[in-house]
């Protein structure tokens, strides 16, 4: 969190780890992330055998099961290319927890090596690609919810807003208590549904009250949660993954 991350020069190729939520529920967000990278002249390698980073089991305390699933991902990135993850939550899992998850096992070195190559998508676009965006869209008031994992675990509170700030026609509005959790928390939403509901209720209201026409997140867990809440309340306000928004407005 407080350590300084050194960024590599723009590589020729990257790996893309799409995450299970994107794979199953928001595939366009994954594809849009890939498109943004390819537009920068980077070849994107998508290992077909990828499934899940292992986080759901990890945070639930099932570390043996999480390790087994994480282990199945380790061999998918044999070349030294960066691994781009369009999620602060899965990215945070891989970057900050893989080392300790495999500590003392034969795979520890490999796990630490993989972890060191993991970048969250917006982080990579800002710090490695130095992405320049040209807005083609209509004027819009936009709110961004940065996931807690992106914000705190990966220290990336600024990268999403930095990209959005380049969109000339987009006014970024800030919701009250922007840094507060939306209440998703993976299995937390299932184990403590009422507390989680109270949190997402507040988050959805704050985004509405900020006057946003639309919102984006860097994590599909938050998107499913906040978007699902707004839809449940039959609200007009909709959200999407930041990769889709950036691609749509600049292509």
């Amino acid at each position, binding site marked *: *969190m*407080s350590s300084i991350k050194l960024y590599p020069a723009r590589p020729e190729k990257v790996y893309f780890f*799409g995450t*299970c939520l994107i*794979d*199953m*529920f928001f*595939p*366009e967000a994954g*594809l849009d992330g890939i498109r943004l990278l*390819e537009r920068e002249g980077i070849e994107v390698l*998508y290992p*077909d*055998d990828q*499934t*899940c980073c*292992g986080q*759901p*089991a*990890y945070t*639930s*305390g*099932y*570390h*043996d*099961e999480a390790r*087994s*699933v994480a*282990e*199945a991902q380790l061999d998918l990135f044999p070349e030294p290319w960066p691994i781009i993850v369009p999620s602060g939550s899965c990215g945070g899992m891989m970057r900050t927890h893989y080392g300790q998850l495999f500590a003392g096992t034969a795979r520890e070195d490999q796990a630490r090596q993989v972890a060191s190559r993991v970048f969250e998508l917006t982080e990579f676009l800002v710090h490695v690609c130095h992405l320049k965006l040209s807005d083609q869209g209509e004027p819009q008031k936009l709110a961004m919810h940065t996931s*807690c*994992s992106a*914000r*705190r675990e990966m220290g990336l509170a600024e990268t999403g807003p930095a990209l959005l700030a380049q969109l000339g026609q987009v006014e970024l509005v800030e919701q009250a208590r922007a840094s*507060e*959790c939306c*209440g*998703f*928390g*993976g*299995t*937390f*939403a*299932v*184990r*403590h*549904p*009422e*507390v*989680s*509901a*109270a*949190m*997402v*209720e507040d988050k959805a209201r704050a985004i509405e009250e900020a006057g946003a026409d639309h919102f984006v997140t860097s994590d599909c867990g938050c998107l*499913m949660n906040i978007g*699902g*809440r707004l*839809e*449940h309340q039959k609200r007009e306000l909709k959200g999407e993954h930041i990769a889709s928004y950036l691609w749509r407005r600049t292509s």
Partner: protein
Amino acid sequence: MSSPVQTFTPQQFHRQAHEALENPQIRANFRKAMDGLIGKRREAFDDWELETLRELGANIRLRALSRLPDLLERLEANCEANGIRVHWAEDGDDACRLITRICERHQARSVIKGKSMVTEEMHLNEHLGRAGIEALESDLGEYLVQLNEQTPSHIIMPAIHLNTDEISTILHERTGTEQTRDVDAMTAAARAQLRERFMAADVGISGVNFAVAETGTLCLVENEGNGRMTTTAPPVHIAVTGIEKVVEHLADVPALYALLTRSATGQHVTTYFNMITSPRKAGEHDGPQEVHLVLVDNGRSRIYQDDELLDTLRCIRCGACMNHCPVYTRVGGHTYGTTYPGPIGSILMPHLMGLEATKDLPSASSLCGACGEVCPVKIPIPDLLVRLRREAVGEGKGNVPGAGAKRSRKELAAWKGWQWLATHPGAWRGAAGVAGKFRAMAPSHLGPWTEYRTAPRPAKTSLHALIKRRRQEGDS
């Protein structure tokens, strides 16, 4: 009307959370108070090199813990040399018996107490009550909570769950104070009531914020002066503390004090900072004739045995983790049903009460990381919550009482199923395909999730399939 007497237990976390969430008064009181405290902390640290200071605080605590057995012996030796009598208590009951015995030796009938969470932990007041000794809380918040027959809902601000009107009613009903909304008038009334009791008390009992090993000094941080009264007016002072509160040097105190007050209430200094090094000396006009220090283990040395869990003992009890916790803010302190609520409570109480009783606490966090971010001594609270979840489901090291209490065959089977699928990529892609094909049949009701949100629907085509198609079509 004051609230009826309620008993809260960690076993009832879900029911208590439900009731708190349904109570607009509780919701509003906590939200307002926590927003205020978050703002004050932010302002207090504004011109400080916060990260450097946190690093310093963490290192001071780590150094102290790494030498804990040695420091405790030095503390004992130096306190004894200063005339402070040191007692060791293995658990809460042991400590209660010890304290009661000291009180009885002085034929004490009335005890005045400064704020002390460790005495809450051991239910000292009830214990003393059974021995016919009346213990009165002198911290204003603690006093109100005691009058209302409740327990503290916050470790720094025990009565934070009450608003002005509720406090006015409690003071009116329990002490005959005239009903008013004037906070100063209420404070003055409580102060007058307490003042008499300070003068009449046979024994004063306080907590300790930092116990300095090299000098045998007990530091007490407070704002109301009640701590100073408690430790000086009665003829006997008993200081009670957990064994982890020891620091090595006097020079370690300023950094921790700076972190504590800023993190807790956003104050640069508190109104009072007491350093107690001995009982009244010959020729001195005031101060107690006897000072005792009770060092309480109560599960702490067990925590100390585990390299990872050990970090729990760094805590300096500032309460910032609860102030910043989105769960605590919504359900309040009583919901946890434990002496220490919020994130620190969820990582500490399982050790004190066992995971059987507290198994719902480590999971009562979205792991948002706000607690770890503000902790002045950098306790990795989210990691420790995950560790306790592991212990709860029986996949940890077994170093926590009640480990495995949450083990469920059904849940394990579900994770094993997930594990199988996620380690068989072909089957995974197949499952995604099937889910997409039958997406119209995807359940629109998913338990409690869909009471508040719509159900997520599987995409028609998974990312795996989209990419495969893209490769075939050579699309860009």
